[in-house]
């Protein structure tokens, strides 16, 4: 199997020059990007199949002596390529704030409580069908200083590798119906509404566990398409 990486798909991404998100002002390159041909350096990438992912890496509620506070949730999904085929045995890294909207990170100054029973970091490998599964608590929204009264909608950070340097992506998963979407310049930096909505997970009643946890589904589509795509349908 050999993959190609059409550049057209990159239109789904935000522009780094997104001035409503103030941190971009001094960090977005001013010069145009230079088109890089896809050589072996780009079409290969690290493989982490050997990384031991144990149960507490995928269950963020069991990494400490006690249970974290908050709404327990199950997050599942599939990692797919642009043809909709599963990306098996690929690494998924996640991190998030706790239920109060506070990160463990030393530089997070939000005056909301840390939870001694929650770190908020997880890791999983997709199975042969590209599926992953985490158990965690729903992260809280939190304020930031981008503009007056700025709040980030609740989100979980996702980091994925896929098959090559070209498929590498870091993104954020959001929760359906969040009233903060319209005010968030990071979410809104994705100008294509359809692409933006692909970052919103789906409430998933099928995966909920009665009297235990709610569930959300979040599929992730990485760059890469079969080199010999199926014939497009056309009228005769």
């Amino acid at each position, binding site marked *: 199997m050999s993959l190609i990486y059409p*550049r057209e*798909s*990159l239109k*789904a*991404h935000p*522009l*780094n020059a*997104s001035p409503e*998100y*103030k*941190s971009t002002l*001094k*960090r*977005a*390159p*001013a*010069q145009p*990007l230079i*088109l*890089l*041909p896809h*050589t*072996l*350096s*780009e079409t*290969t*990438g*690290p*493989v*982490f199949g050997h990384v031991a992912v144990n149960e507490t890496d995928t269950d963020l509620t069991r990494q400490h002596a006690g249970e974290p506070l908050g709404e327990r949730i199950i997050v599942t999904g599939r990692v797919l390529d642009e043809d*909709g085929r599963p990306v098996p045995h690929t690494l998924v890294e*996640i*991190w998030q704030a706790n239920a109060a909207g506070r990160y463990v*990170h030393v*530089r997070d100054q939000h005056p909301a409580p840390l939870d001694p029973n929650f770190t*908020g*970091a*997880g*890791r999983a490998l997709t199975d042969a069908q590209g599926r992953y599964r985490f158990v965690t608590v729903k992260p809280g929204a939190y304020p930031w200083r981008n503009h007056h009264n700025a709040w980030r909608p609740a989100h979980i*950070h996702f*980091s994925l590798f896929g098959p090559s340097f070209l498929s590498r*992506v*870091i*993104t*954020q998963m959001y929760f359906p119906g969040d009233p903060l979407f319209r005010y968030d310049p*990071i979410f809104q*930096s*994705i100008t*294509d509404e359809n*692409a*933006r909505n*692909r970052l919103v997970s789906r409430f998933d009643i099928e995966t909920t566990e009665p009297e235990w946890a709610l569930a959300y589904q979040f*599929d992730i*589509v*990485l*760059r890469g398409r079969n080199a010999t795509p*199926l014939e*497009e*349908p*056309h009228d005769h």
Partner: protein
Amino acid sequence: MTTETKLTTETKPGLTPSQTIGPFFAYALTPRAYGGSELATEQVAAEGVAGERIRIEGTVFDGDGVPVGDAMIETWQADPQGRFHAAGNAGFTGFGRAETNTEGGFFFETVKPGALQGADGTQQAPHLSVSVFARGVLVRLATRIYFSDEPGNASDPILALVPAGRRDTLIAQRGADGVFRFDIRLQGEGETVFFEA
């Protein structure tokens, strides 16, 4: 049209868009200070891996020349024979990951990669592929690290795509101490060349 092709076309999913790594990734992605297990570090090649051992050091700066103390840098490279995923090359994954310190600094210790085939029979000079992630960076910035002591740079097909006046931003300079210096300027004067990969 057949049902099969119709389904394939209609279910073709769109790419998941990128978002910023944000300022608070360290406890998950570079968690040494938090006691977490590290996926990869700035040590790309373990002791004993054959090849010329090198150290690359640099600082990430923003458009005002202020050090960027919350970036994550990842590197990907071939081994000294120009191979990726070479079997039997224990202690070498080719993948490095480092967060910048509060002064914007980072380093990698590795072995120098070999030359690589490029397109159409050309040869690429030794280089590392680099991803830069940071708060304020919505989409990973892709660049390359070449080496100042490689004569092959003059005929490298990728460097040839870069305006001559900006090529130096992709070339790590070997200092008197043998360390290669590679600063990353996100914006403004001396802005590093970034690629659409």
